[in-house]
C-alpha cells in the first residue's frame, strides 16, 4: 500500500517531467498523442488516489535528518476530499484540453506543467511534515507561472507578463512568510510532524509566540487563499491563464491556502489562531463584499468569475475564523464546493471565450439557451450554485459558515462575529445579483445569431460530470461532511476550551 501512496506522487512527477523534457527532444510530437499520454498518467493518478483514500496508507521515513524533516505522508478525513477533487480535476483539465488545445508553446510542456501542478497539490494535501508542506506548496509555482506566461491569453503579451509575474511574486511572498511561521512553529514546538503538532494543540508555546506564529501563517497562506486585501494577484492571473490553468488555480491552488490554514494554524496554535480569527473573519467578509461588488460591474466574464472566487473564499475564511467545528466543517465543505463550481464555470467560460474570441459581456451575442443549450444549461447550474441556491453544492458551505459565525467559539467576540455574519448575508444577495446579471446577458434572450458550437465530446463529458457533482454534492452534502467530521472535531479551536 505504501507503494501506492508513493506512486500517487511518482506517476505525475515522472510523467510531467518526461513531458516537459520530451517536447524539446522530440521535435514534432503529435498533440493528441501527448494528450493521450497525459490523460493516461492523470487517470492512473486518479485511480491511485482513490485507492489511497480508501486504504489510507501512511509513510514516515527520514528525508533531511539534519533539519528533522521527514518524508511523512498520510491521508485523513480532511485531506481525502481535496485529494479526490485534485485528482479528478487533473483528469478533467487534460480531457478538456483535447477540445481546446493549448496555444503559445510546446504542447508537451503544457501537459507536463499541468501534471506537475497536480503533483504539487497532491503532495501538499498528503504531507504530514510542516517543512515538507512548504516544499510541496512551492512546487506548483514555477509550472503555473509557465502556464500563465506561455500559454495565457494570446492577445496581450504585456498583460501575460504582468499576470504571471504578479502571481509568482505574490505567492512567493506568501509562502516565504509561511515558511518563517513554520520555522517558528517547529522551533517552538520542537517537532515538524503535523500529526504531533496537532495533537499537542500548542501546549508549551506561550500565547504571544502562538499569536506571532498564527499571524505569519495566516498572512502567508492568506495571500494564496486569497484574502482581501492581498487578493490583487488573482483576477489578472485567472483571467489571463489558459482554461486549464484557471481551473487548477481556482479549484486546486486556492484550496492549498485554506487547507494550510486549517492544518498549520488552526490545528497547531489554536490560542494564537483565536487571537487573529476576528481579523481573518473581517478580511473574509470584506472580500465577500468587495468580490460581489466588483462582479456587479465587471464586464470581462472570466475576470468576473475570478472576483466571485474572492467572495466565495471569503466565506471559507469566515467559517475558519469562527473557530467552531461547524465553522471548520463549513470552510472545508465550501472549499470543495468552490472547487467544483469554479472548475465548472472556468471550463464553461474558457470554452465560451475561445468561441466568442473574447469574454466581454458588453458585446451583443446570441443567447446561449437558443444556440447552445447544453453549455447554457451548465452555465445556469454553475451560476445557480455560485449564488448559493439550496439543493446545489454552493449552498451548504456558505449557509454553515454564516451559521457558525453567528455562534462562534466560546471566548470569541460574539458581537463582532454576528456583525460579520450579517454582512456576509448581504454578500449572498450580491452573489444573486451578479449571477442573474450574467445569466440575463449571456443565457437569456432570443437572439439566435451568430451560431455557436455547442459542447460535445470531451468538453461535454467534463462539463456533465461537474454538473452532476454540483447537484450530487448539493443533495448529499453528508458524503463530504462525514469524511471531515471526526478530524475536524479534534482540531476545532473550541475543543481546547
Amino acid at each position, binding site marked *: 500500500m505504501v507503494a501506492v501512496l508513493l506512486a500517487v506522487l511518482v506517476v505525475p512527477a515522472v510523467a510531467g517531467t518526461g513531458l516537459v523534457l520530451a517536447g524539446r527532444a522530440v521535435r514534432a510530437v503529435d498533440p493528441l498523442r501527448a494528450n493521450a499520454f497525459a490523460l493516461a498518467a492523470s487517470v492512473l493518478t486518479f485511480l491511485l488516489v482513490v485507492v489511497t483514500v480508501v486504504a489510507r496508507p501512511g509513510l514516515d521515513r527520514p*528525508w533531511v535528518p*539534519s*533539519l528533522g524533516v521527514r518524508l511523512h505522508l498520510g491521508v485523513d478525513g480532511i485531506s481525502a476530499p481535496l485529494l479526490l477533487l485534485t485528482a479528478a480535476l487533473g483528469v478533467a483539465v487534460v480531457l478538456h484540453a483535447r477540445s481546446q488545445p493549448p496555444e503559445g508553446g*510546446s504542447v508537451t510542456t503544457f501537459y507536463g506543467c499541468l501534471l506537475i501542478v497536480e503533483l504539487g497539490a497532491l503532495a501538499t494535501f498528503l504531507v504530514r511534515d510542516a517543512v515538507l508542506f512548504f516544499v510541496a506548496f512551492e*512546487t506548483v509555482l514555477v509550472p503555473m507561472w509557465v502556464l500563465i506566461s506561455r500559454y495565457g491569453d494570446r492577445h496581450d503579451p504585456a498583460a501575460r507578463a504582468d499576470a504571471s509575474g504578479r502571481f509568482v511574486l505574490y505567492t*512567493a*511572498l506568501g509562502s516565504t512568510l509561511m515558511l518563517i511561521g513554520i520555522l517558528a512553529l517547529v522551533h517552538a514546538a520542537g517537532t515538524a510532524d503535523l500529526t504531533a503538532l496537532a495533537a499537542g494543540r500548542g501546549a508549551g508555546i506561550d500565547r504571544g509566540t502562538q499569536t*506571532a506564529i498564527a499571524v505569519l501563517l495566516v498572512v502567508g497562506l492568506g495571500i494564496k487563499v486569497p484574502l482581501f486585501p492581498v487578493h490583487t494577484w488573482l483576477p489578472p492571473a485567472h483571467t489571463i491563464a489558459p482554461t486549464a490553468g484557471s481551473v487548477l488555480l481556482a479549484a486546486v491552488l486556492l484550496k492549498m491556502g485554506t487547507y494550510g490554514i486549517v492544518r498549520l494554524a488552526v490545528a497547531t496554535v489554536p490560542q494564537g489562531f483565536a487571537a487573529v480569527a476576528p481579523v481573518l473573519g473581517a478580511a473574509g467578509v470584506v472580500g465577500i463584499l468587495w468580490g460581489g461588488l466588483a462582479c456587479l460591474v465587471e464586464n470581462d466574464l472570466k475576470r468576473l468569475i475570478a472576483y466571485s472566487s474572492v467572495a466565495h473564499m471569503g466565506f471559507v475564511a469566515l467559517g475558519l475564523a469562527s473557530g467552531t467545528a461547524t465553522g471548520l466543517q463549513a470552510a472545508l465543505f465550501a472549499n470543495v464546493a468552490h472547487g467544483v463550481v469554479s472548475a465548472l464555470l472556468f471550463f464553461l467560460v474558457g470554452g465560451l471565450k475561445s468561441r466568442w474570441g473574447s469574454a466581454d459581456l458588453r458585446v451583443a451575442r446570441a443567447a446561449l439557451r437558443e444556440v447552445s443549450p447544453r453549455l447554457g444549461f451548465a452555465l445556469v447550474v454553475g451560476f445557480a450554485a455560485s449564488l448559493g441556491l439550496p439543493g446545489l453544492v454552493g449552498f451548504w458551505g456558505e449557509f454553515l459558515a454564516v451559521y457558525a459565525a453567528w455562534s462562534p467559539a466560546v471566548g470569541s467576540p460574539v458581537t463582532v462575529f454576528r456583525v460579520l455574519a450579517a454582512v456576509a448575508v448581504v454578500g449572498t444577495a450580491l452573489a444573486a445579483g451578479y449571477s442573474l446579471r450574467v445569466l440575463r446577458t449571456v443565457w437569456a434572450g432570443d437572439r439566435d445569431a451568430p451560431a455557436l458550437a455547442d459542447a460535445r465530446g470531451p468538453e461535454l463529458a467534463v462539463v456533465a460530470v461537474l454538473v452532476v457533482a454540483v447537484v450530487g454534492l448539493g443533495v448529499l452534502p453528508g458524503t463530504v461532511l462525514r469524511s471531515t467530521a471526526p478530524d475536524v472535531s479534534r482540531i476545532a479551536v473550541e475543543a481546547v476550551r
Partner: protein
Amino acid sequence: MSAVVSVDLLTLAPVLAPAAGAAAVLVADAAVPRLRRTHLVLAVVALALGAAGTIGGLGAAAGDVRRTLCLPGHPDVCLYTAGPAASALQLAALLGAVVTVLLAWPGELEAPRGRTAVTVSLVLAATTGATAVAAARDLGSWLVALELATLPTIGLVALRGVRAAISGAVALLTTSLVSFAMLALAAACWYTATASPLLAPDAALAANTDPARRAVLVLAVVLFVAGIGFKLSLVPFHAWTPEAYDGGSLPVTAFLAGASKVAALAALLVVVRAITPLGAPVLTAVAVVAALSMTLGNVMALRQDTVLRLLAWSTVSQAGWVVLPLATVSAGAVEASTAYLLAYVVATLTVFAVVAAVAQLRGTRAARTLTAYRGLLRDRPGLAVALGLGLLSLAGLPPGILGLVAKVVALRPVVAGQLWLLALVAAANAVLGVAVYLRWLRVLLERPEGAIAPAARRAHPAVLLAVGLGALALVLTSAAPQLVLHLVGG
C-alpha cells in the same frame, strides 16, 4: 626554536596538492614551452588530489576535526584545524577551481590565448590560499592565506587584456589593498587586545572582560568584518564586483564567483568562531550587512541586462544570505552558513558552465547579454534545463529544492533567535530573488527570434562536462539535500 612538532602531510593535502600543482605547471612550462593540455590535466589532477584529501574530514561528528601543525606542549593548539565545515569549504573551493579549469579548456574562452600556464598556476595558487584559510587558526597563516587567495585573482582578471578587464583588475586591486590594510590593522588590534596570535574564542573572551582591551577588540572585529566584506562582496564593500565580473574572461569570473567566495566565507567563519561569544553588537553588525547585501544585490540585479553583471549582483545578494545565519548566536550558525554557500556555489557554477557553453555556441560577446538565451529551451534543451535548474536553485524554488532547503537552513537560526525584522527582510528578498532569476528563465522559454547564427556547432566536451557535473550535482542534492548538510556536519 622549532615551534611546530607535528606535520601531517596527508592532513595538509587539500592545501599542498594545489600548491604542488601550481609549481608543477610552472616547471613544465619552463621545461617545455607552449604546452596547453598538459597544464590543464596537471591542474585537474592536483585539484582532484586535494579534493580527495578533504574526504576524511567531511561529515565528521562535531568535535572530530583534522588537525596538524600543533604547538609543542599544547596538543590542542594547532595552526591547521579543519572541522567538517572547513573541509566542506575546502572541497567546494577545489571543485570550483576544477570547474574553472574545465571552462578554460576550450582556448577561445581563455584570455589571452596561449597563456595557459600562467592562468592555471594562478588559479591553483588562489585555490591553495582558499583551502589554507579555511583551516587557518592563527593570525599569520590566516592573513597570508587570505591574501594568497585574493592576489592571483587580480592577475587573472587583468590577463584578459581588454579595457574592461584592466578597469576590473584595477577595481579589484584597489579594494584588495584597502581590504588588506584593514585586515592587517584588525590583526594588529586583535593581538593588542588579546595578546594571542591565535584566533580562538577564549582569547576573545578574556579580552572582553577588560573594558580597555574590549574597545580594541571591538575595533578589531569591525575591521575584520569590513575587510572580509570586500572579499565576500558584502554591501557596502561590494563596488568592485560588477566591474571585475564584467571585465574578466568567463572562467575567471566563474572562479571569482565560486572559489573566491568560498575563500572569503571560510576566512569570515574562522573569525566568527572566535568572536561569537562577544554577543550582540557584533551580531547586529552582521545582520545589518546581511540585510543590506541581499536588498541592494537583488534590486541591482533586477536592472541588469548583461548576464555577468546580473550574476555579480546576484552574488552580492547571495552573500547576504550566506552570512544571514551568522547574525545569531545559534550553535549551528556556522554549519548553516557553510551549507548555504555550498548550495550557492553548486548552482552558480552550473549557471557559469552553461554561460560558457552558450558563449561557444552563440559567440562570446553575445553570451553576455540576456537576449542570447532566447529560445534556448527549444534549441539546446540540455543546456536550458541545466541553466533552469541552476537559476531555480538560486531562487530557491522547486525543482531547485537544493536552493529551497538552503533558504530553510539559513532562515532557521534567524527565526529560532526571534530576529523577526531580519527574517522579514529575508522573506522580502526571497521574493525579489525570484523576480531576478525568473526574468532570465523567462527568456529561455521564449521563442527564438529568427534563426540565431551559431558560432559553433557544439560546445567543447570539457565545458559540457562541467555543465553535466553541475546539473547532476543539482539533481542529486535536490532529491537528497541531506548530502550537502551531511558534508558540513549538520
